[in-house]
């Protein structure tokens, strides 16, 4: 297994293809970059060679969106093999996936879908996380997802489910603070209570992103600046857990690279403030 904290607690940004050329050219001062693993599940071509060039200048985190850890279908061995091949090639500092499902009866829905928080789902997720950690021979970070519905069959709260997966498998946690806020609003709970249930030592990364509030519930679009209440929750998380590597994610209506860098600078200020207090 790799060292527990391969990345210092600094701010990074999600790297999307429209920004790749500028990042290669300008080499902006940002601590690390995260890409979606599946976008590099290719045999060759310019995207993969660009990533191989960029990894010389920045630590890279591989963030998966399609492994479907919580699916009642078997784990997709082909998908896992592609992830392993990519990880061997890129040597990422972190490898993460979502605590959700996306496939049933052989059909993929290619989305991050909500699990019922049942004992059956918990046991299955734990088995899968352990299998992935064994296959990759490194700790996996699992991320809490945003959800627009809950199930009557839930046997526990989301935070209990997330904490139990981490405790039982020894995996790391990618805490998405925006997703906690979105779910707190959508399902009516206190986000600070959620934070209090998280195993701080296992948090290896934090995600921040923007949501859409124009509908009947908050939608996690990754298409806007981080909202003020999410920044407040982030400050509370850093105060509670200490500084953690923090990533600005943006996927829809991708703005200029500078906007992401501005957001990362805000996160960096919070992290540096926390370091100064600790010193």
């Amino acid at each position, binding site marked *: 297994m790799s060292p527990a904290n391969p990345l210092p607690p600094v701010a990074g940004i999600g790297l999307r293809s429209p920004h790749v050329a500028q990042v290669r050219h300008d080499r902006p001062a940002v601590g690390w970059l995260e890409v979606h693993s*599946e976008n590099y599940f*290719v045999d060759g071509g*310019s995207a993969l060679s660009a990533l191989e060039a960029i990894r010389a200048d920045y630590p890279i985190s591989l963030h998966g969106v399609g492994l479907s850890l919580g699916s009642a279908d078997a784990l997709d061995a082909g998908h896992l093999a592609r992830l392993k091949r990519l990880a061997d090639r890129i040597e990422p500092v972190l490898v993460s996936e979502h605590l959700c499902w*996306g496939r049933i009866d052989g059909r993929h829905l290619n989305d991050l879908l909500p699990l019922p928080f049942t004992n*059956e789902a918990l046991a299955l997720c734990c088995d899968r996380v352990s299998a992935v950690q064994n296959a990759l021979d490194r700790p996996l970070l699992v991320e809490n997802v945003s959800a627009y*519905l*809950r*199930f*009557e069959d839930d046997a526990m709260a989301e935070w209990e489910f997330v904490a139990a997966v981490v405790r039982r498998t020894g995996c790391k946690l990618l805490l998405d603070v925006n997703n906690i806020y979105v779910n707190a609003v959508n399902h*009516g709970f206190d986000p600070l209570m959620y934070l209090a249930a998280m195993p701080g030592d296992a948090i290896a990364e934090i995600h921040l992103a923007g949501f859409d509030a124009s509908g009947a519930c908050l939608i996690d679009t990754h298409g806007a600046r981080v909202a003020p209440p999410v920044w407040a929750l982030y400050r509370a998380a850093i105060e509670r857990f200490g500084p953690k590597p923090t990533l600005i994610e943006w996927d829809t209506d991708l703005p200029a690279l500078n906007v992401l860098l501005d957001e990362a600078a805000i996160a960096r200020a919070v992290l540096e403030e926390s370091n100064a207090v600790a010193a």
Partner: protein
Amino acid sequence: MQSLREVQRGFAAATVFGDTTALAALGVVGGGLDPIARIGVYRNNVLGNYRKALGATYPVVRRLVGAPFFNAAVDAFVRAYPSRHGDVNRYGGELVRFLAAYAPARELPYLPDVARLEWAIDQAAIAADAPPLDLAALAAVPADAFERLIFVLNPSAHFLASAYPIQRIWQVNQDGFEGDDAVDLGAGGDRLLVLRGANGVTIERLGAGEHALLTALARRAGLGEAAARAAGKEDGFDLTRALRHHVEAQTLVAIRVPASTQPRTGR
């Protein structure tokens, strides 16, 4: 209490197929918002993701039919041809087959071939890298071995033949295309090579001889047999010129010289 599989099966039925009976059985907590509205968020996300992903793979098809038509076709495609990979980038090759049988698109008979071209472009961009052919190795082939010489094609090479001028259709529907965008559907068909070479992905029109040569080589036919096929399709076919061009363009990236000079025997 439902099993995890039952929940996920019901969820897929409710989102992809809009099955309200399945939704009712799911046991979704209302809590201030109707379960139909809640599953509707996922329905929009799931179908919206596919519309966006396939729109990026098939921009010309989308432009030819317009966004509303394209989105409706994608929704129907998703129901008929499930995604089989967690990597959405791998989804969509069967749209060609789907469109060929899609009644609302019948007025655009060239549409499946345009889709085939766009899928080939998409696949060429992510195919394995291949170093160019070593000309010294080619020069070292003894003259008596040329007949049986085998060429390895660039992994990105895709061949397409259509009864319609699909390269022209593709070209005039590119962003920023300027000039006369008229297409004469009766102008004759295309034999195309889609390839990722030194200059990225390109679309090249092939002559009848060239097409016969390369598709035979792609099947691992010996050069003698491939050249004979080309000559049969095109009077005065210039083999040397075609080989030189396709080595330079990196269509042909390696050679194998079979050891034996024995005539090939069947199994």
